[in-house]
């Protein structure tokens, strides 16, 4: 008999999914937000994104090729995703050498030092962003002007600063347009500005079953809950929940950063715990810390709890 029979244990068929396809889906989902950023901030957006992606891919390739000497994995596009997400968390005017430095930290420290894809405990893009924020605070918090109303300050920074200087919430809120917040005419890290584009991307990821609703819904839900309770109790001191959902890293964090596979829990009940933690921490930091924004830190802090969540929050067994 000339035929060769292949033998292996069941199952004998595979589903349509693979790592590359999942990464491509994330990139597709990020495209609308990138388009809005380009429209609002211009060519800088594409340059920063390109430099960030190129630096991330180069860092991963160089580290694997010359230091770790393991298999090369840049082909799965996970470094491209990290590069894009890091860029989304930067001002479009950040000097390019800082972008490249952030990318090196994201991939080198955030990802490869733990063994690469799937083994890193902290979201690599956020590791890069927080490194840059702490190292180059000035450059990282200076944003180009978009509208006359809130020149150069993010809506969250504008509110926090205004409250500090004694202005009332109603005076401050009257200078903001919710439509601008939704569509993206505001200052901020360039990828986070359009809540609408990010929501569309998030819905795409859920339809493609790349992510489930558990993390985004619980992050946004708990943010809305905490800010809503405070707003109802004292509307003269707190902004509305809608304001908090449409500003800062809320949408980018809930749909794209918190849902990062390696750094989020391994079952749906755990995801709920994780998401609620992020939402509550984000609001806590936004309202009562020195920073106007809290999403990045909240995600990184909850990343640290993931092993514990995986250990104690188990999926419900069949019986």
């Amino acid at each position, binding site marked *: *008999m*000339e*035929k*060769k*029979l*292949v*033998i*292996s*244990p*069941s*199952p*004998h*068929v*595979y*589903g349509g*999914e*693979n*790592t590359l*396809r*999942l990464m491509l889906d994330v990139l597709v989902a990020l495209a609308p937000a990138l388009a809005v950023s380009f429209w609002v901030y211009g060519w800088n957006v594409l340059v920063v994104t390109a430099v960030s992606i190129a630096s991330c891919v180069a860092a991963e390739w160089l580290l694997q090729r010359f230091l770790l000497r393991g298999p090369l*994995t840049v082909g*799965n596009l*996970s470094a491209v995703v990290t590069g894009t997400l890091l860029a989304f968390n930067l001002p479009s005017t950040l000097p390019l050498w800082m972008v490249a430095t952030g990318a090196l930290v994201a991939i080198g420290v955030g990802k490869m030092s733990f063994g*690469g*894809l*799937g*083994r890193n405990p902290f979201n690599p893009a956020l590791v890069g962003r927080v490194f840059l924020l702490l190292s180059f605070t000035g450059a990282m918090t200076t944003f180009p002007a978009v509208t006359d109303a809130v020149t150069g300050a993010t809506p969250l920074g504008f509110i926090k600063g205004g409250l500090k200087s004694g202005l009332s919430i109603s005076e401050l809120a009257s200078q903001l347009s919710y439509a601008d917040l939704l569509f993206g005419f505001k200052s901020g890290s360039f990828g986070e500005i359009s809540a609408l584009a990010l929501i569309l991307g998030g819905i795409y990821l859920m339809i493609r079953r790349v992510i*489930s609703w558990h993390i985004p819904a619980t992050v946004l839900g708990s943010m809305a809950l905490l800010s809503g309770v405070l707003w109802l109790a004292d509307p003269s001191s707190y902004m509305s929940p809608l304001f908090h959902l449409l500003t800062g890293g809320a949408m980018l964090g809930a749909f794209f950063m918190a849902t990062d*596979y*390696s750094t*989020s*829990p*391994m*079952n*749906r009940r755990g*995801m709920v715990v994780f998401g609620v933690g992020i939402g509550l921490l984000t609001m806590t930091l936004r309202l009562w810390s020195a920073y106007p924004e809290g999403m990045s830190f909240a995600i990184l802090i909850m990343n640290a709890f993931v092993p514990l969540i995986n250990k104690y929050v*188990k*999926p*419900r*067994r*069949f*019986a």
Partner: protein
Amino acid sequence: MAKKFRKGGVHPPENKSTRNLPCETFPLPEVAVIPLSQHIGAPSVACVEVGQTVVVGQLIGRSGGFVSAGVHSSVSGRVTAVGDVTDIRGMRTPAVMIEVEGDTWLDTVDRSEEIVHECDLAPEEIVARVAEAGVVGMGGATFPTHVKLSPPPNTKADTLIINGAECEPYITCDHRLMVERSREIVVGATIASRALGVERTVIAVEANKPDAIEALRLAAAGRVEVAELRTRYPQGGEKQLIEAVTGRRVPSGGLPIAVGAVVQNVGTAVAVYEAVQKRKPLIERRLTVTGSGVARGGNFAVRIGTPFEKLIDHCGGLRDDQIKIISGGPMMGYATGNMQSPVTKGTTGILALSGSEARRRPETSCIKCAKCVSVCPMGLEPYLLIKLVRLGRAADAEPRAILDCIECGSCAYTCPASLPLLDFIRTGKRTVAQLKRERDAK
């Protein structure tokens, strides 16, 4: 509303291209190789000698105990050997080889087409006839049916479920059976429910077989329930099926009878019908030959002991140099290296996958996507189980319920990194079962 199980599951492409091909009677083989162990439990003991002539339906292997089943000749002719042959797994197994001469049947078998509806036998007599005919579960698990029909005295069955889910992709023999022999299924179901004394009898079929559901409803005429199931793998898994139909969940480590349920495949229902009403032993079965590796597919009624190769040749032979031949479906079937493997009571299909379909994908890094956890119908954590087993810590997988795994393969099917999840879970299960035996022995 289609009934469904609540946890996990996947929906692979159905690929049931043979669904509309009527079942053909497959020609007799020249030589039938009939294994003496085609069921779960003790092997049967040969009761024929070399040189002896046998007829179709004659007992050739006596049941080896209560949890065992008799084996009957599927052909008429002369016994040429009684000894070991290579089975589907490449292991030696005792079998009887018969050179086929003509097609003479045992004269007690009623071979007419007429359907005998009435049955007023006592439960014990039904069980005795089923045992005598060597009937075993025909969905692939091959548990002796007379054992299932006589639950232990301290238990009580209230629901009989006839499993027509056929949730494995590619396989369509049960589908054709339900369309073509719906009346026999209904009579078989009522006989089995009579033996068990159950209040409720449900024939459950996945929604992707509307013609089967219609035929069964017509045949049942209200005497038994026909339930539509959501099309989702592993709907035909015993525990998932019981949950979908009754809402009850079989406890971990427990048997269906613990929640008052007994499950029989639709093919088994027909075998019960034939055993009780026609006195026909289980000597043939229906199976599907399909897949990209054969020129054409089909559904066939095949005598037990027919070699796989004959079926494959009949379907145009293998089309590629690299082929995987699977006994059963693609999710739970067994890939064999032995083209001479005989069709047995549990062979639901022969699936030939060619080219890249036949190959495994290379494993990449786990990306912790948690998809294996969300598709597991038993609520286990496959990613964790494979990690523990690979670290040599299978014992730690026991409290993580590794023995609850039903080996449906949903985790490995869905894994974007192509991790061999089920391979290692199986290994771990074996280790844990061994540890448990040692512990119980102390």
